[in-house]
């Protein structure tokens, strides 16, 4: 029965004390939340902690969710984003390291490589590293729109910004990724930049 329910219905039932509904909702939504946190932080431990915090938050404050303002999935991404930020700030404070956050936000890039054993693709590894080195607000849109395949509207709701902002950030993020890949793996991306442009 819970599989046929919408996210909003499952949430309401869970908040009324239905454990089965809560379990179904968790199993349906924990994967995207975990992967979002993983792509943002680069750490499976942080991603698990964030996933747990997100669903604990949903248990305690789930009544505040307003279905009219967007889908539950986007709401969970927004909550996860805040917890990832907290984890990153905490990690940054503990590491007490300095970095230029605008161009190379590699504060939480760890040795974890999720595609190392799965994709076996040099391009995927290069893209993964390039994504992880993006500044946070560009990485967010790439993770949501490209890796999580969310719509621009859902990404805008999760990030709390306008749809046009998501679009322009994604465009800028792709340009930055291309620039990074051109430097690290030009033969893989097939971009030479030699052709003249007619900018007049």
């Amino acid at each position, binding site marked *: 029965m819970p599989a046929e329910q919408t996210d909003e219905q499952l949430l309401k039932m869970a908040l009324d004390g239905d*454990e089965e509904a809560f379990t179904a909702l968790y199993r349906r939504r924990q994967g995207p939340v975990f992967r979002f946190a993983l792509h943002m932080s680069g750490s499976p431990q942080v991603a*698990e902690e964030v996933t*747990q915090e997100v669903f604990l938050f949903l248990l305690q404050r789930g009544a505040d969710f307003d279905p009219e303002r967007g889908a539950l999935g986007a709401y969970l991404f927004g909550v996860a984003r805040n917890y990832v930020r907290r984890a990153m700030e905490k990690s940054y404070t503990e590491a007490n390291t300095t970095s230029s956050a605008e161009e190379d936000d590699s504060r939480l890039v760890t040795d974890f490589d999720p595609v190392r054993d799965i*994709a076996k693709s040099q391009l995927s590894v290069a893209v993964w590293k390039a994504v992880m080195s993006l500044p946070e607000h560009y990485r967010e849109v790439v993770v949501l729109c*490209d890796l999580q395949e969310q719509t621009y509207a859902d990404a805008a709701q999760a990030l709390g910004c306008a749809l046009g902002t998501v*679009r322009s950030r994604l465009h800028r993020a792709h340009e930055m990724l*291309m620039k990074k890949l051109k430097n690290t793996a030009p033969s*893989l991306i097939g971009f030479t930049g030699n052709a003249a442009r*007619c900018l007049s």
Partner: protein
Amino acid sequence: MTCREFMDAAEALTPSQLLRMRAAQDQPLAAHVGECGSCREWVESHSVLENALHALSVSTAELEAGPKVEQRLLQAFRKQEFGPQVMELPQKAAKSLWTLSRFFEVGAYAAVAAALVVGVFLGARILRDQQHKTDHAQAQAVRAPQSERVVLPRQSEATKTMALIPETASTGGAASSPAAKRGASQVRNSESYSGENEDYVALMLCDPLICSGEEQVIRMELPAAAAGRDGTQTVLADVVVGDDGVVRRMRIVN
């Protein structure tokens, strides 16, 4: 279309959408991609990037949180009290509101009682002050002939009539100046004054409409000549002055 216009328009589209449009060959963007080698390279390289991102997404699509996370969440779920918590909130809120309303009710009663006490106190004080003023005014009126500055009661009609009697020639030799003559003639007329205004000499022909205001008695020193007497000494006189500043009557004290 220039490359700048193409880049502005391409911002709203994904590279795969651009490639699909290029295949259709019926869009300005696709036409530009077909004409411009740089933009075509840009689209193709972004398409490669998009494919790589998609591959990355697919490769990580199976990653999930461990089973321990679910177990911890279920433990937290079982510890959480759902029903009573929902019911308690309105009750607690109602109790708090009732306590708050009682507090304001008692406060309002106290404020009204305090206002009544202050009102009674101020009323009593105002009444006492008014009584005191009335008594003081009556006492001053009684002492008016002897006081330095006293408000006199209004002139009676009889007094006014007498003040309008013109002076006669029989008293003209008693004074050396015109003012003294007039004063002397009015001394005679003042004989018929009432007891309170006895010895006062009217100094002006007063219109009843003008002279109907309050009057004050001012004791002052006057040159003896001004009082119709010989010598350079001064004499004490009670001068009755109206509220318009004009002298009505006077009398010599010594």
